[in-house]
């Protein structure tokens, strides 16, 4: 394992600027972030602080104004090149399943596009992923339009993981799920992170998810990362945004849960 020393994602002096009708608004200013292999890093921040923009820049879907984004040792701009599915998996907020394909075809898509592997092996491998994310084999031939929100997320996760990429990006994985589904999905993410040795970068608003899954939390505020560390380190921060975000009523409840789980362990 040579990758433990070099970070999986390295963001250096990143500037994001949105140009809107001649008016420029700066979203990120000299933002630095690095994600080590095997980490489960969560990015939190207020609405409009550019968390999703950050994810999109890591994926190479958007180009930053200034600065460097390196993913798995290569510039992020090259992420969309051929074979990207084997380097990084992305779970989009609304799943982004191909609506014209069945569940199985959605999961198998990246494998099928390799054009070499036999259909039987592709189907077998897709069925393994389908079950790994906790779906019943009988769901394989359903269309995305017939799935519930939780199932859409699971299928999207299976699709993101089909080539076993070392890096997984999650955009609001539990948004739009009921508490039971959200808990189940969290448990799934945690077990996959542990079993597959994935590096995960997650953007979330959900404090329960945040404390339950993250090994490290990075807070985006004032156009850069104001604090990053374990849950307790972040909670101890005196930054006003961090205080408001975590010490609000919802934050205290989630933190109390965190305390309880820590005591149990």
């Amino acid at each position, binding site marked *: 394992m*040579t990758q433990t020393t070099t970070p999986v994602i390295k963001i250096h002096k990143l500037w994001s600027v949105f140009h809107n009708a001649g008016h420029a608004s700066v979203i990120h200013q000299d933002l630095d972030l690095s994600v080590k292999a095997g980490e489960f890093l969560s990015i939190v921040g207020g609405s409009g602080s550019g968390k999703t923009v950050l994810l999109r820049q890591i994926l190479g879907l958007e180009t930053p104004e200034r600065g460097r984004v390196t993913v798995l040792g290569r510039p992020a701009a090259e992420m969309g090149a051929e*074979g990207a*599915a*084997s380097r990084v998996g992305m779970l989009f907020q609304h799943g982004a399943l*191909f*609506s*014209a394909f*069945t569940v*199985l075809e959605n999961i198998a898509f*990246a*494998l099928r596009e*390799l*054009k*070499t*592997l*036999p259909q*039987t*092996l592709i*189907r*077998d*491998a*897709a*069925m*393994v*992923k389908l*079950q*790994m994310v906790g779906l019943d*084999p*009988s769901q*394989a*031939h359903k*269309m*995305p*339009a017939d799935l519930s929100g939780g199932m859409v997320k699971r299928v999207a996760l299976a699709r993101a993981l*089909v*080539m*076993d990429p070392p890096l997984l990006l999650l955009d609001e994985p539990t948004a739009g799920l009921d508490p039971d589904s959200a808990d189940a999905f969290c448990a799934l993410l945690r077990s996959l992170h542990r*079993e597959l040795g994935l590096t995960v970068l997650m953007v979330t608003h959900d404090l329960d998810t945040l404390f339950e899954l993250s090994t490290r939390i990075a807070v985006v505020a004032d156009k850069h990362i104001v604090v990053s560390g374990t849950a307790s380190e972040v909670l101890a921060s005196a930054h006003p945004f961090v205080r408001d975000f975590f010490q609000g009523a919802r934050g205290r409840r989630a933190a109390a849960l965190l305390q309880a789980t820590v005591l149990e362990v």
Partner: protein
Amino acid sequence: MLEKSPHIALQLSPQGGRVLLSGCWTAARLAEPQSWSLIESTLAECAASGQKPLTWDLRKLQKLDHTGAHLLWNAWGRQWPQNLLLLEAQRPMLERVAHYAIKAPPPARKTLWQVFLLLGERLLVLLDHLKYLTRLTGQLLLDSIKLAGRPSQGPWRDVSGHLYHVGATALPITALVGFLIGVVLAYLMSQQLRQFGADAFIVNILGIALIRELGPVLAAILIAGRSGSAITAQIGVMRVTEELDAMRVMGIAKGYRLVLPRAIAMAVAMPLLTVWTTLAALLGGMLASDLAMGVTPAYFFEALPKAVQVSNLALAVGKSVVFGLLIAVIGCHYGLRVKPNTESLGQGTTASVVTSITMVILVDALFAVVFKNIGI
């Protein structure tokens, strides 16, 4: 560490064979054509080697992912081989695959009876289309009456927006196509007419053909392709993004807000575009006749009113209003029937354009038959 291509080597000996695996057994690397052909043939060889127990040595593998593990699992006949040498780190991957490996359930096959039922379903879909189309037209009529009762509360902003998109932005393309058709027609006719020495009749032929038939139909076909598809796509995307549902729960009638403005805009823009296209075509025809046959524009201007009765123009304008309404209603109809997926959106747009062009030509033929005594 360099990541090597996946490799497999089979060493057969009297005591039993040995299969040596090395490199990266990951989906992306396995799919490299040169590696895959070797692996496929060697695995087939292993399977064909028969009863002799093989020793599978996985210890040289750099990487193994689920696809690679499944490939091995399938090669082992979906059971653990007797002799297996592997690293502890590789075991969980194989165990997971062993645990989850099942055959994909076959997609539901259609029985003969279901195929038969499908036939009836097709017919029902056709009837359904007719029903909804009738309902949409009726609703449009009711909405027009409502609008006539309170014209100040009409969706006039929408109407003007659509008028601009359907009408004004279509001016260049319709003019260009009309002009060229006029030129082509004049050149073709000039060859024929010269044989009979009937050069002067070019004005009659161009006048009647362009004003009465080609102008309206040409404009309608262009607009059906251009704006009919846009209407279907706009409304279809609104269905996909649940905007139609949002309008419904706010109690805003989609017929009044979506269909009516488009129908009005089309009914107004279509005759204007027809006149515009016809003018461009006549201009093209006039220039071409001057060049090809020496029929001067002055003569053209003089002879045209005598050759073509005004009723032809009225017929053309009347026809194009109907064409415009047809295109709008068919576009909206298919847009409203789009299901929330990309495939349905594509199908709806195609169906909308094909149907509206077919209907335009059909209705045009109908007009030709009904008004055969007028203007000629």
